C-alpha cells in the first residue's frame, strides 16, 4: 500500500506543480474557473484514453510513438502557456483594473479560455495516464483493491495538499507588480517543458549529433529524488542535460524573456468605469 502511495504521490506531485502555478498565474483572467474545470475534466478523461491506447501509441513511428506523443504534448503545452503569458502581458492593465468584458472577448476568441484548459489538461494527461496504468497493473496482479485504493487515496491527497499549499502560497507572495512572480515561474516552466520535449525527440533518435550529455550534476542533485522531481517540473532540471536540450532551454528562456519584456506596450484602451 505504501509503495502504491509513493508512486501515485510522485506522479500527482509533478502535475500539481504545473497546475498550481498556472492557476495562480492566471488570476484575474475572466472566466478562468470554467477553463480550469474543463481542463481538469479533459485531463482526467484524456488520461484514461491514453492509458487504454498506450500500446497503439507506442507502435507508431517504428516504436517511437510514445516519444513523439510525449514531445508533442510538451511542445503544445509550451505554446499554450507561452501564448497565455503574452496575452496576460498585453492585457495587464485591464486585468489590474479588474476589467471584465463578458461574452465579447470569449466570442471573439481573444480570451485564453481554451489555452488554459489545454494547458491543465495536458499537464494532467501524461502523468495521469501513468497513474491509470499503474493502478490497473496493481489490480491485475492481485493487489487487494482495498489496499490499492488506500494507497491511491493517500498518494493523491498528499499530492493535492502540496498543490493547494503551493497555490495559496503563490497567491500570497505574488506581488502587484506589473508582471507577477507566478508568470516568471511559468517562463521557466515552459523552458523546462521545451527541453524535456526535445529530450523525448532525442530518445526517438533525432538530433543525434547534439544528443551527447554536456554535464552530470548527480553529485549535486540526483534525478529521481523529490527535490529533483520538483525542480524538473518547475525549471526542467535534469542531472544529465544533452546539448540540444541546453540549446532549446536557453533559446526558449531568452525568446520568452524578450517577447514579454518588450512586447508589452499596452495600447491605450478606454476602460469603461
Amino acid at each position: 500500500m505504501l509503495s502504491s502511495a509513493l508512486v501515485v504521490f510522485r506522479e500527482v506531485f509533478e502535475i500539481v506543480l504545473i497546475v498550481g502555478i498556472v492557476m495562480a498565474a492566471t488570476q484575474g483572467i475572466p472566466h478562468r474557473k470554467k477553463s480550469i474545470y474543463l481542463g481538469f475534466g479533459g485531463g482526467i478523461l484524456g488520461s484514461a484514453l491514453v492509458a487504454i491506447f498506450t500500446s497503439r501509441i507506442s507502435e507508431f513511428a517504428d516504436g517511437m510513438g510514445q516519444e513523439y506523443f510525449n514531445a508533442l504534448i510538451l511542445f503544445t503545452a509550451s505554446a499554450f502557456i507561452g501564448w497565455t503569458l503574452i496575452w496576460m502581458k498585453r492585457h495587464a492593465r485591464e486585468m489590474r483594473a479588474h476589467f471584465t468584458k463578458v461574452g465579447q472577448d470569449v466570442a471573439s476568441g481573444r480570451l485564453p479560455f481554451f489555452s488554459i484548459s489545454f494547458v491543465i489538461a495536458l499537464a494532467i494527461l501524461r502523468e495521469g495516464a501513468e497513474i491509470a496504468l499503474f493502478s490497473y497493473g496493481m489490480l491485475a496482479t492481485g493487489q487487494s483493491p482495498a489496499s490499492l485504493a488506500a494507497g491511491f487515496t493517500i498518494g493523491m491527497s498528499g499530492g493535492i495538499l502540496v498543490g493547494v499549499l503551493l497555490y495559496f502560497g503563490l497567491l500570497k507572495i505574488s506581488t502587484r507588480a506589473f508582471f507577477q512572480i507566478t508568470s516568471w515561474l511559468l517562463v521557466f516552466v515552459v523552458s523546462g517543458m521545451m527541453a524535456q520535449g526535445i529530450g523525448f525527440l532525442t530518445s526517438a533518435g533525432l538530433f543525434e549529433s547534439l544528443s551527447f550529455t554536456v554535464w552530470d550534476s548527480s553529485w549535486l542533485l540526483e534525478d529521481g529524488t523529490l527535490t529533483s522531481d520538483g525542480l524538473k517540473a518547475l525549471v526542467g532540471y535534469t542531472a544529465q542535460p544533452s546539448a540540444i536540450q541546453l540549446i532549446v532551454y536557453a533559446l526558449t528562456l531568452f525568446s520568452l524573456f524578450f517577447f514579454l519584456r518588450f512586447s508589452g506596450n499596452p495600447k491605450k484602451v478606454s476602460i469603461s468605469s
Partner: protein
Amino acid sequence: MKTLKRLVALGFLGASVFVTGSVFAESEIVIRIKDHKFEPSVVNVPAGEKIKLVVHNDDPSPEEFESHKLNREKVIQGGSKAVILIGPLEEGAYPFFGEFNESTAKGQIIAKDANTVDGASGGEDGAQSTDSIEPSSDAVTFEAPPLEGNQ
C-alpha cells in the same frame, strides 16, 4: 505569436534532422520483464555504439522502463513490447528500473570499450559496478558484430 513560435520550432526541427548522423542498423538486445523482474538484469554492451533495447513485458500488468542515467522512460503495457534506443554510451554502469515495481524490477547496462570485452559470458568485474545490484548469473555479454572495412 503562437503560429510564429510553432513555425520556428518546426523549422529548427526540420533543419536539425538533416544535421544528424547517418542511419545504420543498431545492435539489438532483448530484455524481458517477468514477475516484475528484468531478465537479464545486467547487460554488457560495447561502449561508443548505438544500441537498440527491445523490452518485452511478459507480465500481464504494465511497467514503466526508466533510467535517469540513460535519460529514458517508457511505459510498456502488459503483454506488449517497446523499443528503446540508447547510445553511443561512454564506459560505465547505467542503472535502470521499473517504476511501477521498483523494489524488484532493477537492472543495469554496463558499457565497456570493445577491446576490453573478451569472450567471457555472463561475468562482469566486481570493480566495475558501484551500484547495489548484485551480479546475476544470467548477465548477458553482447559483442558487436565485426564492422566491415574498419580497423
